[in-house]
């Protein structure tokens, strides 16, 4: 079984090489003369107006948590899809109820306007 993951390992290694290699070559071969002005943060050439540590709006959190819920739902679907042909109609209705309960939540968030960004 593990042999089938060897291409993925190779892919990860090549990915790291392609990602890190140019940075490393640039760091080693490029000129490196930093000073205070070069290291200072800037906003499109202006002096920085305010600190970059702004508080994010809580709406991003709402979008992320709604995404997690449906992401977990997908994780339940994978083993179900594999065994559906073996278990037949019982497994079908188990998943129908599972999805039905979550559709209630989906309708709730749609009607509440949680999916609207304004």
């Amino acid at each position: 079984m593990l042999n089938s993951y060897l291409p993925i390992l190779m892919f990860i290694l090549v990915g790291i090489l392609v990602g890190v290699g140019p940075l490393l070559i640039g760091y080693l071969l490029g000129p490196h003369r930093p000073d205070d002005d070069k290291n200072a943060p800037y906003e499109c050439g202006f002096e920085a107006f305010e600190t970059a540590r702004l508080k994010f709006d809580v709406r991003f959190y709402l979008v992320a948590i709604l995404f997690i819920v449906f992401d977990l739902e997908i994780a339940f679907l994978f083993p179900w899809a594999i065994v559906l042909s073996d278990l037949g109609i019982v497994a079908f209705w188990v998943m129908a109820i599972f999805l039905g309960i979550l559709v209630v939540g989906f309708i709730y968030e749609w009607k509440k306007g949680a999916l609207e960004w304004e």
Partner: protein
Amino acid sequence: MGFEKFLFYVFAFITLWSSGMVVTRRNPVHAVLFLVLAFVTSAALWILLEAEFLGIVLVLVYVGAVMVLFLFVVMMLDVDMAILRANFTHYLPLGTFITVVMATEIFIVVGSENFGLVAFPAPEAVSMAVDNTRELGLSLYTIYIYPVEIASVILLVAIVAAIRLTLRQRPENKYVSPSNQVHVKRFDRVRLVKMASENSNFETPAKDTRLDDGVTK
């Protein structure tokens, strides 16, 4: 077997190193990114244990979704390092106490006499023909039907709770609903008024001929 063992040590070292970086980094965003690395290498360790479904779900759910949430939470809080570090000695005794209690509890539960190959002998190797994900599905959707449905109810509670806690309508924001725009009819915007033509022999001032509220004056 030798290559697998080598891979295990490589991934285990990266996991331990990145976990150490998580608790020692001062910048919380860096700590979260190291936690992502720890999760990815843990997934690789699980795949080495032939628990491929768990490994892929770890990447899918934790790296893909939960860590995004962690990053949002870190960025949502106003993390000022100077304030956080100011009371370090003040909180040190309480923090040390809690750490010692937790470490003792963990040691009692999974101490050296309760752990290891004697207490938990390695499971018998199954044949390569057994598909991990299929076995999981077979037990999940036959024996554990009720817990699966409870899991869906818990997810429903999470949806409702997140919306109740964080959704705020902003009445000050003015925006046009696309649905209303699409459903608008000609009669909502323009009113045609039928009237007899008027005598145009006398001079009409120019401003009186313009359309005002759709009505010709």
